[in-house]
């Protein structure tokens, strides 16, 4: 494919130091670190939807925030259209933010309760000085509200967030992200708080906008089934690292990593006759301060062998565009 790369991430790391109590800090010279994101690299092409999938605590949200420079990475490089984001000044970054937006998970907390819907949606236009007159702003607001199916706009414009349902609020959050006509959006579990029936509606509207404007989207989710419907490519994360990256249909239908297999098996299927043999992993995500030796997944893996405990598997390309980090990839 001759796609243009929009986002390039190389060897990204983000470690959070843990605050110790006063006495503990006297006793130890080393500050323990949570390795939230530990050496990941990926690219997102123009008009592509890349999914980050994993359980909570695997570092997917941190990755999204680091990309937008909401938090500073510990190490690594991030390029947006060839520009190294880490070398930009605050003012330059601020300008670039117009092209990069984020949609947060919780529509109940991400909207200012004291602002009307109109003010919430139009605020970015004023902050980034994208419009000269209120008339222009109004036109843009109408446009995005109609695109998000908040019609007629007059009915919702003067309401406050508490007067809207969860689905409507999340549409407002999406409209607000889209109003500045960004080229890249990080959607951090945008529909996980919504009811399933409303979920598909919001997802469809977002898909429509992504296709219309040829946007690149980083879609963060824990739901493999939903990722299958939205993403072009998927990266499965476990404890700060990619365990598998590939095209969506390949990853969801023929997973190579046991963790991907488990994530897929965990999704309940809305069909009472379609019961499958369940591969349920035992236990929970280990403590990221002291990740297990070797392959980080080995304590929960049902195929784990001696080598998995000792040696960390590297992310290798097994087919074109298909990467997996496992000593014994499934079906290989």
């Amino acid at each position, binding site marked *: 494919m001759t796609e243009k790369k929009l986002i390039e991430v190389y060897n990204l790391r983000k470690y959070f130091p843990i605050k110790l109590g006063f006495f503990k800090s006297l006793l130890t010279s080393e500050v323990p670190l949570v390795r939230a994101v530990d050496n990941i690299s990926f690219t997102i092409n123009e008009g592509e939807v890349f999914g980050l999938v994993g359980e909570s605590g695997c570092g997917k949200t941190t990755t999204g925030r680091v990309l937008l420079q909401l938090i500073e990475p510990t190490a690594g490089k991030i390029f947006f259209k060839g520009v190294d984001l880490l070398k930009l000044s605050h003012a330059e970054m601020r300008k670039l933010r117009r092209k990069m937006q984020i949609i947060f998970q919780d529509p109940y907390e991400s909207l200012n309760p004291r602002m009307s819907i109109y003010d919430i949606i139009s605020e970015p236009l004023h902050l980034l000085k994208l419009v000269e007159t209120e008339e222009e702003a109004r036109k843009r607001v109408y446009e995005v509200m109609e695109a998000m199916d908040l019609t007629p706009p007059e009915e919702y414009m003067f309401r406050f967030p508490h007067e809207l*349902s969860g*689905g409507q609020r999340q549409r407002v959050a999406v409209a607000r992200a889209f109003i500045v006509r960004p080229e890249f959006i990080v959607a951090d579990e945008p529909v996980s708080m919504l009811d*399933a*029936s409303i979920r*598909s509606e919001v997802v469809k509207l977002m898909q429509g906008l992504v296709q219309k404007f040829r946007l690149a989207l980083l879609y963060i989710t824990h739901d493999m*089934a939903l990722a299958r*419907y939205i993403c072009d490519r998927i990266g499965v994360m476990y404890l700060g690292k990619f365990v598998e990256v590939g095209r969506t249909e390949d990853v969801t239908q023929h997973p190579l990593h046991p963790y991907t297999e488990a994530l897929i098996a965990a999704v309940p299927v*809305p069909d009472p006759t379609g019961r499958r043999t369940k591969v349920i*992993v035992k236990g929970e995500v280990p403590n990221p301060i002291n990740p297990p030796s070797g392959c980080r997944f080995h304590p929960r893996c049902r195929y784990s062998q001696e080598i998995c405990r000792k040696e960390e598997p590297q992310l290798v390309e097994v087919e074109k565009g298909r990467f997996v980090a496992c000593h014994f990839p499934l079906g290989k």
Partner: protein
Amino acid sequence: MPLLNVKNLKMYFYTLRGWVKAVDNVSFSIEKGDSFGLAGESGCGKTSVALTTLRLLPSNGKVFDGKIIFENMDLLQLDDKTFDRKIRWKKISTVFQGAMNSLHPTMKIGDQITESILAHEDVSKEEAEERAKKLLDLVGIGASRFDRYPHELSGGMKQRTMIAMSLACNPDLVILDEPTTALDVIIAAQVINVIKELQKKLNLSMLLISHDLSLIAETCNKVAIMYAGKIVEYGDAVSIFKESLHPYTTKLINAFPSVLGRKTELSSIRGFPPDLLVPPSGCRFHPRCDYAMDICRKEEPPVIEANREHYVACWLVGGKK
């Protein structure tokens, strides 16, 4: 005879703007050993049904009509004391939504289960502790964690503790309200497995309330679909999921992305759930229905038995007969 029989239940909430018709003429029954799934969007009144059954309604909730028959008693007619002594926890217990936050933070989980046994049954402390340990084993937490505090456990384990506690007095019916909503995928799958195992081992009867049809498809043998305070379709799980008759049910099922098999177009339901202060006239689903006819706007469809034990309230189906 059904274990629990809800007949024409009407429960409204009083608000300053008027009566919110949260549960409006709802009837269903649960047989012994049934796993009954009550599904619907948020705000459709499914949790209100559970709260009414458990007599835990807030002070502005009022039952206007109907009966909830359990063991030849109408739960709505019992006085509070009798209900507390005879029914609550001993016969009907519950696991609430976000249950992991309902554990006492400064009490060991084992003690909390023991306490709930002692509060309802006349047994010695040793015996109660013994039973608590068995329950912890049963839900896969292990008796060794008897002395743990809730903060030492993960969300999934707390939820399993709550399930263990709901089983403390060998209830006849367990009501599970969104038991997996706040959990991670893999942890949720573990909890679903625990529920399924318990069904097999204890022949447990349960009422499972969820907006997640896939959870219900995995665990229930009977399903009722609720919309805007009413049950619109009701039957055994296979016929509901495979031969749904109500347009709402069909849309709801197709709104779920499936990770396996053919990738089909996701359906979505246009519009938003109605305001239950002034529900739409006729069929409550008609403003969002693709097949709405004149009669749907005017008259409420009756509940008819379309196929054996498969009930539906829709004019489309009534017309065919």
